[in-house]
């Protein structure tokens, strides 16, 4: 088990180093001179331009050899310094991200967990059951092939603009101020529902189909046939099939986190939800590169943490990893 966890941690550590290196290298090795470009772009604000130029010369330390620049980048990172935003100039990038992150996580975590749970249940129910399968399968394929933002657009258009059941923009009512009051929380939930549903539905389709296919594979396997031959009730056979089919679904959870995060970003943009997605759209439109790089790192860290949590769960669920019989998946 320690070996399994250690190996995973090694991979995550390596991934983090690669990600930070990418974050450091891209501005430096892209065609053109990004420093000049950046400073030129905001030349309208003289005081910002001046501060930025000095910031850049300091941060990039262009006279230093590249390895020293690289080390400086890491040092700054460990001090929690991701630079300053250009579009809201003196504000540090970390402040902007900290403001948006709760909204993103509040959407993502329930959407991922609930869609996974519901998708697995429904998929398992549908496998090899004619009537249910004939509805779940097509619906699942339609959902999983839908681009996240398009489902968001449809929901916002139908339930938001046309029938006016739900609000279409913002994280809470604009007349309210963020506070811990019942009215505010109600407004928060009200605005949360549509973006959550569009994330939930697309992911749900994928899980349902995955589980359905997996159960069919399991039901065709030797142990299932053997159980059936012994006269076991089909409920029991299905129970064992479900348990075995769960393991790949847990691994799958780690694999699709990145995809759902991407879906979350665009869904937020559709609903002008005040999370990282809207922040990154703003950053791109304003060419706020520090902010883009900062959000990139935060996303990487979140995904790595989520992957690690999934690994821990896997160890708890699959006894083989605990007894040291590390499968090839490790």
């Amino acid at each position, binding site marked *: 088990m320690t070996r399994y966890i250690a190996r995973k941690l090694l*991979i995550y550590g*390596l991934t983090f180093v*690669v*990600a930070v290196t*990418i974050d450091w290298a891209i*501005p430096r090795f*892209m065609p053109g001179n*990004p420093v000049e470009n950046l400073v030129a772009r905001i030349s309208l604000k003289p005081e910002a331009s001046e501060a930025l130029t000095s910031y850049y010369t300091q941060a990039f330390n262009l006279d230093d050899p590249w390895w020293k620049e690289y080390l400086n980048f890491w040092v700054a990172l460990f001090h929690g310094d991701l630079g300053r935003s250009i579009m809201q100039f003196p504000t540090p990038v970390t402040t902007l991200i900290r403001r948006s992150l709760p909204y993103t996580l509040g959407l993502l975590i329930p959407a991922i967990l609930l869609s996974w749970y519901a998708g697995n249940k429904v998929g398992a129910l549908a496998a090899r059951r004619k009537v249910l399968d004939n509805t779940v399968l097509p619906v699942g*394929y339609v959902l*999983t*092939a839908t*681009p996240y*933002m*398009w*489902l968001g*657009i*449809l929901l*916002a*258009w139908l339930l938001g*603009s*046309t029938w006016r059941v739900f609000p279409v923009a913002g994280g809470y009512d604009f007349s309210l101020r963020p506070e811990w009051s019942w009215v505010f929380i109600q407004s928060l939930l009200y605005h949360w529902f549509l973006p959550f549903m569009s994330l939930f539905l*697309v*992911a749900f*389709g*994928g*899980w349902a*189909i*995955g589980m359905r*296919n*997996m159960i*069919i*594979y399991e039901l*065709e396997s030797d142990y299932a046939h053997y159980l059936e031959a012994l006269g076991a009730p089909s409920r029991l056979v299905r129970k064992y099939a479900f348990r075995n089919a769960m393991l*790949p*679904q847990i*691994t*799958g959870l780690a*694999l*699709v986190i*990145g*995809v759902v*995060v*991407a*879906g979350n*970003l*665009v869904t937020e*943009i*559709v609903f002008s939800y005040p999370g990282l997605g809207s922040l*990154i*759209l703003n950053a*791109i*439109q304003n060419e706020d*590169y520090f902010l*883009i790089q900062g*959000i*990139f790192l935060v*996303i*990487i860290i979140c*995904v790595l943490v989520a992957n690690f949590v999934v690994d821990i769960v896997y160890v708890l669920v699959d006894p083989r990893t605990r007894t040291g019989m590390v499968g*090839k998946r490790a």
Partner: protein
Amino acid sequence: MTIAPQAAEARAPAAPAARAPAPGHRHEMLYFALRNKKLVFGLCLVSLMLLTAIAGPYLARHAPMEYGGPPGAAPSRDYWLGTTMFGQDVYAQFVNGLRVSFLVGALAGGLAAVIGMLVGFTAGYRGGWTDELLNMLTNVVLVIPTFAVLLVVAAYLTVRGVVIEALLIAFTSWPWAARAIRAQTFSLTSRDFVDVARLSGVPWWKIVLKEIAPMMSSYLFMAFILMFGGAILTAATLDFIGLGPTNTISLGMMMNYSVTNAALQLGFWWWFIPPGLAIMVVVGGLYIMNVGLDEVFNPRLREM
């Protein structure tokens, strides 16, 4: 690409091999392929859209980015899919965007499949240190949220073309295929016929190409289809965030423009429904084709 990777990966060891392409076998495959409703249905959807993408632009009466029509007009005889807020022809944008989607999907999916095969075959066949290294690389690229990487790279490229976008997507989407191919290569390498080839002094890359790859050709084809669909979705997401090609229109950009210009509030449904619907139909068609192919290649899955 939500379900596809893990489902494909999970069943990777079960699906492959054991299917040597015998002469009479091919007719049987074709028979089952034409009889498989899912495969035929998916193929019809994709072909229909492909046809639209190829022929559609020739029928357009306006250039996709040309202004001049009535702003925000509903579909009519002159403008088959209406116009945008700025009086651009939605039909022209749609068919050209569809073309771009297919192009990006085929390029990125194909290249990702090639990279996946290179890494998977090499790692699985060579084993040892090569395998350790490649496996590490695969795992790192697998864990890294590729979309975030695309985001940062695309943001710094001020001029982006369709090919660049496809390359970026290909370089980040190959790992799951590489992993599945590696696992299969691993198990095939210990087969007798591979030993015979090795004993007769055939170079290793030739063994991979002539002995191992044909054994999993069906799987490789299916992996390509899944990556094709996945690339189209990724490209649409990237375009929607505003990091798509800078020199052409695309379906994701159409959706972006419609959302940012309040098409939802104004009820210009003809502007945002077609691009998303087209992506859904193409990607859905590809996925359904994939299930059909799976059933054709794997007799145990055929519905009785």
